């Protein structure tokens, strides 16, 4: 039977790991927020608004990382035909979409004091927006096809096609942005930030990642239960 090959083993594993992941997430968030709000200094140029970086940058990292996880899971599903991989990709999408939305929202909140406009077609914000569309498109495929087996087959392709396009979009948007607008005034990336700002950023990044892991495990467990319920209902229809 090609239903979920070994869900019980996975659910058991998830139940064992989850408490530790939740605790670690909460601790890391506490440390990260403390570092972000209290210890790190205001920026000589931007003042306090630089603190938005601690919620914007991790969200942007997660937005990309989660799509990569979805593409990897889809590739595993194609190669090893493992139905749990499809469930992993499907459940990761809404979480990734939330992180992308957060990256866009906090980016816009950061842009307003910086450039005086809520939305600036800065290269990173624009490619982040396209990534958001890719997430919505992927989730729409699952919505549009009611039968999970067929939806999984199609969703894998959509995830991989989207993944192949992320670098292309990134390249073309950056090039396009440099064409229409001189390099944007504000650039914070790479090791140029002071260490006192760097460690809270990394801690927040780790906290976001662990939060994703926890939410992802719980969502997969829920999806496994949902599939079992669906099969029991179908079996009842079959018997009648």
């Amino acid at each position, binding site marked *: 039977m090609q239903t979920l090959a070994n869900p019980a083993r996975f659910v058991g594993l998830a139940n064992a790991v989850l408490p530790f992941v939740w605790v670690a997430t909460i601790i890391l968030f506490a440390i990260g927020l403390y570092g972000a709000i209290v210890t790190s200094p205001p920026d000589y140029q931007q003042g306090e608004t630089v603190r938005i970086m601690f919620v914007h940058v991790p969200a942007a990292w997660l937005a990309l990382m989660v799509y990569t996880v979805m593409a990897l899971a889809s590739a595993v599903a194609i190669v090893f035909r493992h139905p749990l991989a499809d469930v992993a990709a499907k459940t990761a999408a809404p979480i990734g979409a939330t992180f992308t939305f957060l990256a866009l929202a906090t980016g816009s909140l950061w842009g307003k004091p910086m450039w005086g406009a809520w939305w600036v077609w800065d290269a990173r914000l624009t490619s982040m927006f*396209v990534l958001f*569309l*890719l997430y*919505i*498109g992927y989730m*729409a*495929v699952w919505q*549009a*096809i009611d039968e999970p087996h*067929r939806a999984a*087959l*199609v969703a894998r*392709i*959509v995830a*991989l*096609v*989207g993944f*192949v*396009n992320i670098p*292309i*979009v990134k*390249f*073309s*948007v950056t*090039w*396009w942005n440099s*064409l229409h607008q001189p390099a944007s005034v504000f650039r914070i990336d790479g090791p140029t930030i002071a260490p006192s700002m760097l460690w809270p950023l990394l801690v927040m990044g780790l906290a976001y990642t662990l939060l994703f892991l926890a939410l992802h495990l719980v969502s997969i467990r829920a999806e496994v239960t949902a599939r079992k319920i669906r099969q029991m209902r179908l079996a009842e229809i079959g018997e009648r």
Partner: protein
Amino acid sequence: MSLILALIRRDLTLAFRQGGGVGTALGFFLTVVVLLPIGLGPDQALLQRLAPGALWIALLLAVLLSADRIFQQDYEDGSLDIMAMGPMPLELVALAKAIAHWLASSLPLAVAAPLLGFLINLDPAAILPLALAMGLGSVALSLLASIGAAVTVGLRRGGLLVSLLILPLYVPVLIFGVSASTAPGAGPDIATPSLLILSAMALASLVLSPLAAAAALRSYLK
């Protein structure tokens, strides 16, 4: 090779005999181009600056609109099953149908677009670069549209989903398409490099789109 031509020839006869295909796409394109000055106001200088971008967006939407015609009919009347059992792999069937769609609707639009440019005060010097860029870009547009068409072939109202899935993939084609259509002379020559990148994208989608489209079609044949 002759099998691909047989399929393309049949699709072209079908498209022209039913007439609907080319007509609606052209009609849609014309409406979009006419709506622009109405919406943005008749200011000639503004329209001239927007003209290449606007024509590209109209082309892109028109191609997308006619995308679901690529596989829909063959899926519904069972021809796709027989083709999947034919001597030619499904990937080449997808490629042939995408090329047929390009010849039947994208190319005529790419040729008509620059000629309709005068409606929105397109700079005459930009007509040739625009035609060249659109000719190349329309290949990528049709091929990418074939992925969307394949992904939504079995769905009742897949039209909306096609645009949602395919528009992000159109972003690079639009960016380099528009920059390849700028008239020479103004500013540094960005037309030729963009044209090269555009043709690179067209070639890449020539190879990759049939793979994705065939995989999606197989999941619907199951």
